[in-house]
């Protein structure tokens, strides 16, 4: 894809809940707070909609990092969704760590609709982290490479 094959451009999927984090990303946009274009956002109704299979699927198909953003605990539009998401992701990340996948490749961050700055900062940090980890080789399907 990239014109310059030497340069590593990570593929990063960000799942954002519709009510807080997606709006936070919108605010980052309208505030012109830049973060790398490597991040692509998928809108979901709530962080609790994100199935661990989606995250593994992203890695399978070549993602180098996956981040999930939702409302702060206590602020979920659906009251309790992010509490379930929090447990699910904790366990999923723990398992990925356990099988030797670098634990920096996954992250959960609570971003409110007012936190455009935080959204942008988080994405910048995350992309930097993925750069430091390099290409994801431990959790991808070989057939999707090249």
């Amino acid at each position, binding site marked *: 894809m990239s014109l310059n094959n030497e340069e590593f451009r990570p593929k990063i999927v960000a799942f954002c809940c519709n009510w807080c984090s997606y709006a936070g990303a919108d605010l980052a946009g309208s505030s012109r707070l830049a973060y790398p274009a490597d991040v692509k956002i998928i809108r979901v109704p709530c962080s609790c909609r994100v199935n661990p299979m989606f995250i593994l699927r992203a890695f399978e*198909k*070549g993602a180098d990092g996956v981040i999930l953003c939702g409302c702060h605990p206590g602020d979920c539009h659906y009251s309790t969704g992010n509490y379930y998401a929090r447990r699910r992701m904790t366990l999923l990340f723990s398992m990925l760590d356990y099988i030797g996948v670098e634990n920096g490749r996954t992250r959960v961050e609570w971003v409110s609709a007012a936190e455009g700055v935080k959204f942008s900062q988080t994405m910048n940090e995350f992309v930097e982290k993925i750069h430091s980890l390099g290409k994801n080789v431990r959790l991808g399907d070989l057939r*999707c490479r*090249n």
Partner: protein
Amino acid sequence: MYKIAKENLPALFQLIAGERELYVPVNNNGQVNFAAWTEGAVVDLDTLKSVKSPKDAFFPQSENLYTCYKDGKKITIQPEELQNQNFVVFGMKACDVKGVEVLDKVFLSEPVDSFYAARRAHGTIVALACHEPEESCFCKVFGIDCAEPVADVAAWMVEGELYWKALTEKGEALTKAAASLLTETDEAKVEAEKAAIRAIVEKLPYSDLSLEGWNGDALTEKFNSPVWEDLYKPCQACGTCTFVCPTCQCYDIKDYDTGHGVQRYRCWDSCMYSDFTMMAHGNNRTSQLQRFRQRFMHKLVYFPANNDGMYSCVGCGRCVEKCPSSLNIVKVIKAFEKQGGDQ
């Protein structure tokens, strides 16, 4: 007849692997399976049976058929290349070799499966006699002599030495290639080994298993027998028996979206699975009883009926050892035997 000391086998493997691919039984974390020989691989010739049969040297669990590449609206299709390099499978047992013969019936008859045919054409089998057969073995029932395997090369391990006898042209060619490490010898020790093995085979608990009644004739009767109802119940519908079996040949064809195209591949399927032969209208066999029956009817009735009496079971006993519910083809045969006796 040639021989080579056991401690020189690594050198032999290195020599063969130098010019072609070599598959040997390798111990990986306590489990022995056939794998490509590499420097440092733990070759295990003492374990009688590999977990999976070596059939995947010729019929791999998954193999690519072709790849489609998509670029904008342009699609190119690239068929997978056929096997064009020679390779050797070292250490197959008589039953496994017979298993390949069963596969030949399926894949080499019209329409010929070109992927399989290419591998068969390029593969050389070195078969090893079974030094100490085990209680789950019943190859004798199918007329297989594990003391004297029929392959490109037959081999025996006797008192720390491997005896080597080429039986085909391919075998001769391999012998020539390995000549520098082989020394000529007579067959006396091998004869003694054969006799010893055959004596043990006589003592095996399953050796007196009778296949009487398992010919194509009693097809409907067998199919409708109430015995199945009782037999299948412990079956949990996993595919273990199928995947360790040297003769199971069913596969599924699937597409994988690589993001930049599609890979069409085939992979082993199991008649024990609920989605086996699933079609648009649904499934031919809707119950586990039917699927269970299919497996054994195929091996013991349909296959021999279509292949001059050749059963598609070789008595390797892997399913006997591996079934999570302790079911197996022997229990099926015996159950019918008992029922026959009762009547």
